[in-house]
């Protein structure tokens, strides 16, 4: 096993990796931008190397500077976390050239899976079902229309060159196809200078299901069952769970086998995720593969008892897998809520700023993977996710009950956050009955309305009135004190009306 590992990341995932390294008595090296001097990962690593600048481009994406730091510090391996350099085949290749272990798959596997069209082709060749689609290239309108008719309406038109919803439109019937196709083409040309349009079967209210795979460098591949990540906002996951309430044991075995086909097709050799969309009939289609650790890996850890970061390290160090498929036993149910510094009642607007109070939950079946602390200022440069709260229960209901309990214990002051949003979601009848799909949040607008529902308004009124009263008292005392000729330092201890600031 390695003696020292550099973590080319920040936030909660850097903390997750540091914790694992600490548990294995491996030294950790952090890198940090100027904005991150006060970040938790800098404090908790054994060494910390500064990357001057603030933006990701200046810092966490500076692959050569990071490689240089690793060499200088004597780190034998680099963990890329997720995001940043984690899926850059070029970086994985440079690590290999420099004789540093990249804690992730080989660069060829990243490359093949990184490009959507290539990935689809690889999967199709491996016999994996993909969302039916047609790449227009310089296809005529007639050819495109034929293809659409063949896959069946509704279909989705997407700019082949772009992303982020641009040039995207849904076509419900053949009669609408011609005008929609022309419009999509011209929008794509305008936005990306490339008028190629990609046609995809539109799945109605699909579920997002993904299979966790683990492969070593000796040709062993196992899967750890699936996660469901249908609750999304702004095309980003907010709540994940494992196992999926929509996946039976048979379906799990089927999806697992497909995922392992994908893994074998690209000689995969790390932990990774094969993502599917499941339509309302239960049919699953390959969406994409993530060649890295996922944000939501804790729910899989809860139900399997495995430590995915530790497995990544062992695989990168050349160890064979310690277990066979039959050793993978799923116990109970786990849910993860991503805690964001954002305002769910104003279009999930990010809310960076100073965390003036932080009370985090614990107790039975609760885990908090956080990257922040009380007194920390959430910077504006990076992702607004501050922690991942996950709970485990013998069944889904117990996991939900524990999540509601843990959300109640979670208290964050100073910034907007989505704790109440999660609480309302966990109580929502459609969530409780597991009637999920990727448009869930849009379907239930009450989730993004700020209205309180618990009838405890009088308690809030009482608390706020006392707060107002005490602020007034403090102000008037302060005025008196600054006028009096006394040592304010001695006074300050007595002013809190009982409320003191402990450190």
């Amino acid at each position, binding site marked *: 096993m390695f003696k020292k590992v550099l973590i080319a990341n920040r936030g909660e995932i850097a903390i997750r990796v540091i914790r694992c390294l600490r548990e294995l008595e491996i030294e950790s090296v952090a890198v940090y931008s100027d904005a991150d001097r006060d970040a938790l990962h800098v404090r908790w690593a054994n060494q910390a190397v500064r990357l001057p600048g603030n933006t990701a481009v200046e810092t966490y994406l500076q692959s050569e500077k990071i490689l240089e730091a690793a060499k200088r510090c004597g780190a034998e391996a680099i963990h890329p976390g997720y995001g940043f350099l984690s899926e850059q085949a070029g970086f994985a290749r440079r690590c290999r050239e420099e004789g540093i272990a990249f804690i992730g798959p080989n660069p060829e596997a990243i490359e093949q899976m990184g490009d959507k069209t290539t990935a689809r082709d690889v999967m199709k060749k491996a016999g994996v079902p993909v969302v039916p689609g047609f790449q227009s290239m310089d296809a005529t309108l007639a050819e495109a229309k034929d293809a659409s008719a063949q896959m069946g309406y509704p279909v989705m038109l997407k700019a082949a060159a772009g992303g982020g919803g641009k040039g995207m439109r849904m076509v419900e019937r053949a009669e609408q196809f011609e005008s929609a196709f022309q419009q999509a083409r011209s929008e794509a040309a305008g936005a990306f200078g490339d008028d190629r349009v990609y046609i995809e079967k539109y799945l109605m209210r699909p579920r997002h299901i993904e299979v966790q795979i683990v492969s070593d460098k000796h040709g062993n591949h196992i899967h750890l069952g699936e996660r469901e990540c249908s609750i999304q906002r*702004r095309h980003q996951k907010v709540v994940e769970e494992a196992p999926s309430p929509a996946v039976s044991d048979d379906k799990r075995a089927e999806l697992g086998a497909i995922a392992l086909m994908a893994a074998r097709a690209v000689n995969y050799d790390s932990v990774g995720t094969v993502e599917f969309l499941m339509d309302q009939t239960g049919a699953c289609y390959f969406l994409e593969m993530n060649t890295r650790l996922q944000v939501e890996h804790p729910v899989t850890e809860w139900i399997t008892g495995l430590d995915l970061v530790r497995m990544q390290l062992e695989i990168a160090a050349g160890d064979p897998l310690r277990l066979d498929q039959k050793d993978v036993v799923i116990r109970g149910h786990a849910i993860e809520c991503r805690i964001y510094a954002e305002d769910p009642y*104003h*279009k*999930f*607007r*990010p809310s*960076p700023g100073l965390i*003036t*109070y932080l*009370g985090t939950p614990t107790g039975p079946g609760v885990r908090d993977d956080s990257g922040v602390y009380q007194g920390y200022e959430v910077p*504006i*440069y*990076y*992702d*607004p996710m501050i922690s991942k709260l996950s709970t485990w229960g013998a069944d889904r209901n117990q996991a939900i009950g524990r999540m509601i309990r843990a959300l*109640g*214990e979670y*208290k*964050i*002051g*100073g910034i907007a956050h989505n*704790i*109440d949003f999660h*609480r309302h979601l966990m109580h929502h009848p459609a969530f409780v009955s597991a009637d999920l799909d990727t448009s869930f949040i849009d379907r239930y607008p009450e989730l993004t309305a*700020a*209205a*309180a*529902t*618990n009838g*405890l*308004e*009088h*308690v*809030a*009124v*009482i*608390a*706020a*009135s*006392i*707060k*107002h*009263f*005490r*602020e*007034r008292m403090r102000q008037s005392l302060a005025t008196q004190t600054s006028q009096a000729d006394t040592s304010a330092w001695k006074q300050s201890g007595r002013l*809190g*009306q*009982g*409320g*003191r*600031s*402990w450190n």
Partner: protein
Amino acid sequence: MELIARVDGRERLVTLKALENDHFEITIDGRMHLVDCRERVANLYSLLIGEDSYEVRVGDSDARGRIETQLYEEGYLLEITDPMKAILEASGRKNASGEASVEAVMPGKVLRIAVAEGDRVEEGQPILVLVAMKMENEIEAPKSGTVKSIHVGVNDSVETGALLITIA
């Protein structure tokens, strides 16, 4: 002390009387509560209302005098006003120009401007998109009115507090 508490658009009339030992007599819309409010940690209250127990984190009042309260069961945002003070302030406000300045709430880059000078806008209508923290953030009109001036252009980088748009 007489106060008005606004929650979700509703107004409650509050009378607060401080007793000894962190106890209070608080009447809300005529209903009286005997409250024991301990604050071992600043802004983290242990409330006993009769024998009902609540732990409530309270935020400091913001610029608009709003106080955030977080209970185990729910979070509430309240506006507490002192009726006398409110009357005084309201008369003061009338002397102001009635203009609203839309400022950048975070540093970022202007991606899109959805209005032009002279446009009529409604409160809550999206008027500008700012990219920050890897995301597009829609900025809404804080009040209904007419766009008086636009102070930034598309692709401009702005700092927190930068004046973006004035609505009259």
